[in-house]
Structures are given as C-alpha cells and as structure tokens.
C-alpha cells in the first residue's frame, strides 16, 4: 500500500481585477496531478519555473489549500481532516524549504528551532527535549556546542542542515524537499544530498524531492515525474527516464542539461520560444506550442496521462 496517494490534485489561484475584485480568470498552477509514494522511496518532481512543482508540495501539506482532488496519507484522507487532526498528522509529514535564509526564524537559536516541533506536538520534559535536539544536531552533522547560536552565524549549508534536523524532530515518514540544495554551492550540495540519502537509509524515510536541476533529481530519485504548466507529462523510474524518455518535453529537458565532459558533444534539441504563462495556458496539450512534433490533435485535445506499460506514464498523443 502506498504511504502517500495523490489523485487528480488541483490548485487554481483566482485572478481578481477591478474595484469589486471580480474573478476574471484562474492561474491553474496545479491542474490534475496523480501519483503515489511508497515507504523508503524518493519520487523526484522536476520542471522549470512556473510548472507548479512547489505548489504541489505545499498543497499536499495543506500549507496551501488544494482546490480539488484527493490526498490519502497512511490511509487517512488529508483533505477531510479538521484542524487539530491535521496538525497531528503533520508530525509525520514534514517539509524542508529552499531558502536556508528565510526558512529559519532569525530570533530563535538552533536549539529552539529544532525543539519547536517537539514542543508543539509532544509533552516531553526539558531534559528529554535537550537530549533529542543534541541527537538530531549530531545526526545532521552539526556541532552540539553551537546549540545556542543564531541562524545568521551559520553558512547556507549549515542552515539547511538545521532545517533538516527540524524536519526530522518528530520522526516523520515523509519529507517534502522543496528545492533543498538549489541555493547552495556545488560542493555543499554534495554534502546535503549525501546526508539526505544517508538519513533515508537509516530512518526509512520517503522523499518527494522537488527541484529544477535534473542532474540532482536523477541522482537522488527512484522515480521521477516531469511537470509542465501544472500537469505531469511523464513519470517513470530514474533509469527509464534517463535511458528511454518518451515525452518530447522530457527529451528536450534531458538534452538541454550540460554535461561536465568536454569530450561529449551533444546533439541538442532546442525548444522554440518561452514557457507560456500559466494564466493563459495553450489549448489541448499545454506543451504543443513548443513541441517539435506537434500535430493537429495536440492543439485542441488534452492528452490523457496513461501507463505505457511497466509503470512508465506519459501524457502525449504521439506515443
């Protein structure tokens, strides 16, 4: 049974105009997403700016309220939960944010930041909490002597570790990693990626790993979903996606990634134009305006997200 089961998730943001704030349109940020996440696995969610991947992460936690859809976590319907029940579930469903600077309260020291979720959810004596915080700090590679330091005294990579320690505080089952390494230097990225992989092994964690860097996503994920303008265009295992990408967008994305090997001369698929605005998505298949293989049907009919066989999903008329 899947730990997290998301069906047809949608999040539309109304666009209001005029003195009376009439809703004149909708930004269809997330427009029907379906996937599952098993215990101990990492599902990567990759896409370029504006594709809606961050909104997916926040909608699952109900940090942003979904417009429609179904989210089942550990057998429980998340969208039907009342405030208090949802709060209790959130102990098992945590998040790590992209910006190591704005995601930590600058007025709380490390100890307080990591202890906060424990204090909010459990009634533990102070000594116990202090021990747990020290344990978590060591687990993420921070020196326990720094427990009274404030976020601004740490580097970006260290702050990200604080965020990870905080997310681990309540022994979660699932952690949504929202661009956790994008703001870090390359050599620090490796440290944090390794840490996340190690913790996953030790604690049997599941990750929804959201990022725009396909190299990072492919490295850490077991399965990868490619997103474009609010919809999944392809979902497959890491190996399948890398060796046998089917959707023209996935193919273009893979070919666009620069390879750190000067001996390799890639034949690039260059897409025309820019990503359309989610305020005004193209009709039919959202990708058709940039698709090198676009046919007539693509311009007016939305393709169905279906299994090609072997759990390799795709939304395309041409495959």
């Amino acid at each position: 049974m899947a730990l997290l089961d998301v069906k047809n998730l949608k999040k539309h943001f109304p666009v209001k105009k005029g003195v009376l704030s009439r809703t004149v349109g909708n930004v269809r940020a997330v427009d029907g997403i379906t996937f599952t996440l098993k215990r101990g696995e990492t599902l990567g969610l990759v896409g370029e700016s504006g594709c809606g991947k961050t909104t997916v992460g926040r909608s699952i936690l109900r940090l942003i309220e979904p417009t429609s859809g179904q989210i089942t976590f550990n057998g429980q319907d998340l969208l039907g939960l009342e405030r208090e029940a949802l709060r209790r579930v959130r102990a098992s469903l945590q998040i790590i944010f992209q910006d190591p600077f704005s995601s930590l309260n600058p007025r709380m020291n490390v100890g307080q930041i990591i202890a906060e979720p424990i204090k909010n959810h459990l009634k533990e004596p102070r000594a116990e909490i202090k021990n747990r915080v020290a344990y978590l700090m060591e687990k993420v590679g921070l020196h326990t002597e720094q427990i009274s330091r404030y976020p601004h005294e740490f580097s970006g990579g260290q702050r990200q570790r604080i965020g990870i320690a905080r997310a681990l505080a309540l022994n979660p089952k699932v952690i949504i990693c929202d661009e956790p390494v994008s703001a870090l230097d390359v050599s620090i990225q490796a440290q944090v990626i390794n840490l996340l992989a190690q913790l996953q092994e030790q604690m049997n964690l599941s990750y929804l790993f959201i990022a725009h860097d396909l190299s990072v996503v492919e490295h850490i994920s077991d399965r990868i979903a490619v997103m474009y303008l609010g919809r999944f265009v392809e979902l497959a295992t890491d190996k399948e996606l890398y060796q046998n990408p089917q959707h023209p967008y996935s193919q273009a994305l893979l070919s666009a990634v620069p390879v750190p090997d000067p001996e390799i001369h890639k034949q690039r698929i260059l897409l025309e134009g820019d990503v359309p605005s989610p305020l005004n998505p193209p009709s039919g298949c959202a990708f058709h305006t940039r698709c090198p293989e676009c046919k007539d049907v693509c311009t007016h009919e939305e393709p169905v997200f279906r299994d090609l066989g072997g759990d390799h999903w795709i939304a395309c008329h041409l495959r």
Partner: protein
Amino acid sequence: MNDTKKPLLAIEALHTRFHTQDGVVNAVDGVDFNVYQGETLGLVGESGCGKSVTALSILQLLRCPPAEIQGNIRFEGVNLLNLDQEAIRKVRGSAISMIFQEPMTSLNPVLTIGEQISEAVRLHEGMRYQEAWKWAVNMLQMVQISGPRARAREYPHKLSGGMRQRAMIAMALSCNPQLLLADEPTTALDVTIQAQIMDIMVRLKEEFKTAIVLITHDLGVIAEMASRVVVMYAGKVVEEAPVKDLFKDPRHPYTRGLLGSIPVIGHKAQTGRRLQEIPGIVPRPLETPLGCRFHPRCSSVMDICRKQEPPMIHLTEYRRVNCWLEAS
C-alpha cells in the same frame, strides 16, 4: 587554441580589496591569467572565490572606496587600471563588454530595449539615432528575438528572463567588442532557455570572433563552451588548464573534489548513491586560513600546507597548479 602568443588581455598581480567596518576583505588576492584573441576562457569557482570581482575589476565597475584595485590589467598594450573615468568609459561597451547574471536587475527599467541597445553604438560609434535604432533591431534579430521591430519598442518588464538575457547579449555585442565578460549568464535561467542562450553565444562568438571570459560555477557549461579554464578558490587561482585536461586529469585537490561532487545523469550506476564530498565550507572573507587556503578541507594536506602558501607550479605551457603536492 591561441593563434598568437600575445594575449588580448593580460592580468598580472591583481589585488582587489574591500575596506569594510570589520576589516579588509581581500576578494581578489594576487590573481593573474591571460585571455587570448577569440578564445573562451572559463573562470570557475564557488561563492566568495573572487571570480565576479575579478571581472568587475577589469572594467572598474566597483566603487573605490570601499574597493581598492591594484595590479596590471593590460589590454592592447595599456594598463586599464591607469585609465581615468573618461578613458575607461570609452572601453566599456565597445572594446570590452559585460553581461550580468540577473537580466532582471541589469537592464534599465525605464528605457526601451531598443534605446538601451542603440545607446552603445550612438556613444561609441557616433551613429545617429535612426541608424542606431536600425542597428539595434538588427542585433535583436541576431539573438533570435522574433518580431524584433516591435520588441525594440518594449520595456524590459515585458520580456521573459530568456529574452532579457538575449537583449543584454545584443547590447553587449552591438559594438563588436574584442572581449566579452559573461558573469553567470545562464545561472538564473531555466535549463531549456539556458540551452538556447548558450547556442546563441557560441554562434555569435564565431561570427563576431569575440573572446569570452565565461564566469560560472556550472562545470557542465564550462565543459561545453570553454577552451581553457581557470579555477579560483578564496581569492586565488588554484589551477589553470585546457578544458579537456582539466576534466580528464585535474591536479588540484579542490578541482578534483569539485568534479567528483557534481551529480551527472546516468552515472549513479557506476559511482553509487554517494557523491564525493569536500568536507567543511569555503572560508569566511575575514577568516582566511594560513598557508594554503584550501588546507582545512584538503584530504591530502601536508604539514607545509598549513604554514606556507604554495607556489604556482607550471606543468606545461598551458597548465599550472597552485599546490605543494606538485612542488615535489
């Protein structure tokens, strides 16, 4: 690689310091390298290594004080640092151009794209307004902006990130510079847009025969576009090599660590889930380690590394490494 031995730009003993309340930050601390005609030189390093400050120093785009630039930046036989404001202004945008990382903040929001591109040719080539405007439209066409005549009349906020970057490239190349300083030109862009921009830069470079100093932390971009690479760390040059040599046989432990730490699609099968790590962090600006700056993080550290700064060892005419390991 280099058709003539004489470099287009020769940087020697460049020191750029910032006088701050907490002390002097030696952002660029004794850097030298050459750029040859028509080549693409990659300048690689992580935050705080001084690569952007080096580029800004070349064109004196830093406010002095608090900055203080010392050294020799020879371009066409003249030390650029000896030029006064009037003279350096004549160089900027004509002989040497620059494009920046954030196209959103580097374009003037109150001038149309056409005005900004034509400004350079009006000032440097003395073109009249109409002529310069036509030139600007032509440049927009060259960077593959569709409907260039209409686009030229638009303001930057109407353009996407990729288009703004193209507009900036058009601006930078409008006076056919000999040298283009490109500071993280694709970092802020989506990967499919990055591919478009890289393609345009390569083609324009071939057409205009411009030399490029490509500043980036992205080793994939370097592998694709650079012919030679200079690696910087904490204000110093640690390694320089032709691009193929750098990737095949990196000599400095920092370069090795950097190359090993990047995830590459498809490599997991061989290298496993664990990436190579460089332990520790880049030194804080006012906490430069004694001896070799990299020694606290180096897996091959020796006693001498902790005490004395390493010499620059020249391995071949085009390869050098700043490391005690090579000294023996």
